[in-house]
């Protein structure tokens, strides 16, 4: 066994020291009838070379060599090479949660930097050390709003990622939280009048996503006013974090629930990603998840440690703010490195490239199909309505090694032959032109 550092004679010597006759003595607590007396039926032990080959074969038939217009909550941005180089350092990825601060300053300081960057980008005052992903950050935000307001209903825009809304429904089904969904208007923005009507004295929060699932940027400030007027909090979901490079931060929100995958994390067939919650300082004690704080050691030197853990499950048990324990620290580190690379100016320029690519693609597609929701600004995603079924179009595009937009029928049947297209800075003009050429007018 390659991973086991003991020789047969080591094992014998250790058993002798323990005073056991055989290894089975150490398993005598397990009643005989439950002891497995056969080999597990799993594949035989493989050599490293075979393992690499096994996964290479499985990776070979995928879309890696295709141009892809898929977004819809998972975005393919360029990932600077320093991210892997640094996140692959064993001291980072083979460490545990930094419970012993003195020998975990690397993780702790990087999380402190992550928290700071998230605050700068979102306009919030505090951010946690990450959640599982954007979709689970949303119900955590809703439950947090319920704790703060003492109210037990939520109003959520239908333009929030459909899968995020499904996760919200699963999480709050036994919390006694009533969730009301509100539709969208001609411009692809949430129907503000409908939200106004839906918010009552029982509403803990209004949840909206910006840019929303259609790529449209919501009027966060106006929506905050609508919610706050009736004492509800505003939760803003950010699924495409790169947008924050050029779109006004949702500073009027009370809680921001974000997915940071765009910051240097591969699509990875859907995970691992990196969720974050950010909020105002006055709500920090109701926020779930880990927090790193600055402090001093005995000699007055700056250091960092986990803090405010009395909110967490390992201390408060059933009265905790959440059951979350393991988060996404390594992925948060990758995001921190990504944000260090692009920084104050690079993020702006990166977002500008995304904007330009999408504007060009939407302009070209408009020549052959209908681009919906023109009345409001958008970032790098847009909805295209075609003559033919988008699945049919996508089948033809696939022959050209192009993965077309995400058909919306499943989640928005009312939009007919509509699909959601995304162009990041990675999309080449020739791929856009080739895709447009395949659309039947």
């Amino acid at each position, binding site marked *: 066994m390659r991973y086991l550092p003991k020789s047969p004679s080591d094992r014998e010597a*250790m058993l002798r020291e323990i005073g056991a006759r055989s290894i089975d003595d150490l398993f005598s607590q397990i009643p005989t009838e439950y002891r497995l007396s056969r080999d597990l039926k799993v594949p035989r032990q*493989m050599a490293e070379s075979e393992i690499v080959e096994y996964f290479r074969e499985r*990776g070979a038939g995928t879309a890696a060599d295709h141009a892809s217009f898929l977004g819809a909550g998972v975005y393919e941005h360029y990932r600077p090479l320093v991210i892997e180089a640094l996140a692959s350092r064993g001291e980072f990825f083979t460490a545990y949660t930094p419970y012993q601060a003195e020998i975990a300053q690397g993780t702790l300081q990087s999380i402190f930097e992550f928290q700071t960057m998230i605050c*700068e980008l979102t306009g919030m005052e505090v951010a946690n050390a990450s959640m599982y992903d954007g979709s689970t950050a949303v119900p955590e935000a809703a439950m947090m709003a319920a704790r703060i307001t003492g109210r037990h209903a939520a109003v959520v825009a239908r333009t929030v990622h459909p899968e995020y809304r499904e*996760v919200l429904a699963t999480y709050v089904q036994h919390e006694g939280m009533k969730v009301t969904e509100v539709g969208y208007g001609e411009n692809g923005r949430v129907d503000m009048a409908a939200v106004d009507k839906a918010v009552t004295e029982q509403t803990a929060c209004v949840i909206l996503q910006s840019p929303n699932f259609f790529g449209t940027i919501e009027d966060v400030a106006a929506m905050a006013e609508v919610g706050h007027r009736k004492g509800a909090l505003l939760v803003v979901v950010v699924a495409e974090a790169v947008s924050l490079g050029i779109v006004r931060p949702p500073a009027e929100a009370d809680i921001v629930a974000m997915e940071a995958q765009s910051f240097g994390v591969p699509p990875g067939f*859907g995970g691992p990603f990196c969720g974050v919650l950010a909020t105002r300082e006055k709500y920090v004690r109701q926020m779930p998840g880990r927090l790193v704080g600055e402090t001093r050691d005995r000699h007055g030197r700056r250091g960092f440690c986990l803090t405010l*853990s009395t909110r967490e499950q390992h201390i408060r048990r059933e009265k905790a703010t959440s*059951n979350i324990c393991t988060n996404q620290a390594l992925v948060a580190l990758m995001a921190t490195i990504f944000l260090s690379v692009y*920084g104050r100016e690079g993020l702006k320029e990166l977002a500008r490239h995304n904007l330009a690519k999408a504007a060009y693609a939407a302009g070209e597609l408009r020549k052959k199909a209908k681009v919906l929701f023109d009345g409001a600004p958008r970032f790098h995603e847009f909805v295209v309505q075609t003559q033919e079924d988008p699945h049919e179009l996508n089948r033809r595009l696939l022959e050209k090694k192009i993965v077309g937009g995400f058909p919306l029928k499943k989640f928005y049947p009312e939009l007919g032959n509509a699909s959601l297209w995304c162009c990041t800075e990675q999309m080449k*003009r020739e791929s856009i032109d080739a895709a447009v050429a395949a659309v039947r007018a």
Partner: protein
Amino acid sequence: MSGPRKATTHVNQNEGLIFEKSSPGKAAWKLPPLDVPAVDAEKILGAVARSDLGNMPEVSEIEIIRHFTRLSTWNYGVDTGLYPLGSCTMKYNARVNEVVARLRGLAEAHPYQPQRLSQGALQIMKALADCLLEITGMDAITLQPAAGAHGELTGILMVRAFLEAQGNPRKKVLIPDSAHGTNPATAAICGYVVENLKSNAAGRVDVGALERQMNEDVAALMLTNPNTLGVFEEEIHKIADILHAKGGLLYVDGANLNALVGKTRPGDFNVDVMHLNLHKTFSTPHGGGGPGSGPVACKRRLEPFLPLPVVMENPDGSLEFDYDRPKSIGRVRAFYGNFGMHVRALAYILANGPDGLRQTTEDAVLNANYIRKKLEGVYELPYKTPTMHEVVFSDKKQAAKGVKTGDIAKRLIDYGFHPYTTSFPLIVPGALMIEPTESESKEELDLFIEAMRAIAEEAEREPQVILDAPHTTRVSRLDEVQAARKPVLRWRPPMREAAD
């Protein structure tokens, strides 16, 4: 004070925050020329355009490399040495796992890409699911939960849905006093009242007490087996029978599965639903606090309630996601879970095979018992019951000299080791919970034992050395009380601080 044999100091450079290196005009990025017409962002975005990115840093690539490399040297990881955090199971993270998880066809796969292009990824999920079902002896599984606690949530939601389908979700979940804090927190989110179950003198579930406590209001018992003392619940079949006789379900927290793989299967002892922690048992790296992955396995009768989607095999052998599951608890996470962790866990299973998995378990248990034997008498052993993959001592002897488990832990750092778990389980005051895992050689274990013995001697002769520890780290003991009293949770530029 005799010098520790393992640890010495080495060059370890000072490093400020990334923000403190920032200066306008420095840049680590370069975008290719734009191949489409540039746009006027302000015009497109109007009122929602942003111009200022606040205090985001501006630094060069070499500064980034040095910054994070230096930070990494301030961390202790499994790669650095023994990491005996009990119940956290810190084992070797194989490099091949990292390589295959980063293969372009897998790392770049989009979750919404056409099914035809996803067959390889789906095959990996199916192969892992099959292996985990064989290892646990269960019937059906979801890989969707993103971590162990997320798996608990999924599992208890399934219990609730199952009972609801029978007409009554019931009111209570029983949780032993030795359990992880995630168990009660999870039960509460699922709308259950938590009722504590007392452990007996052997550190096991008190079966008599369980029998008295069990009634038609109890939905489930959440049991960690082996429990957090490392003790196997010998009467597990009786426990299951008591639950089942009154219509309740047995949930097993798989945090300690590392003690069982290849030796026994929870499904065989009548567990109804359980979660696994891929990052504990199947060597996906813990990354300083995640990502994890917490698949949930269940018996046939609970299968309809699994979160959607689940991987399904078509008659032609192709794989796809099945969304048509009317009894499902719903979705617990967008997409399909932490797929990158699925890849790593499968790579680990393939590298071990049936013999390796069994040997791994045996070595993990051997290592823990070796430590137990060598330190018994030096440290107080509150429960004499035989233990498996971890052993829990208490600080009773040392506490008499004013030295507590947390102090001993800090002193252990000076000897070159990561400390054991200090705060757990709650039924042992001043616990020292040690889990070496299979990844340690006899030599490393002997060094650890020697260090623990030396610290016990110091506690007798010069306790102050321990109370002031650690002495060799770049920061000395940190003021955690102050950090919580006046939280500083983000950096602010000095100028603004002065203005405040």
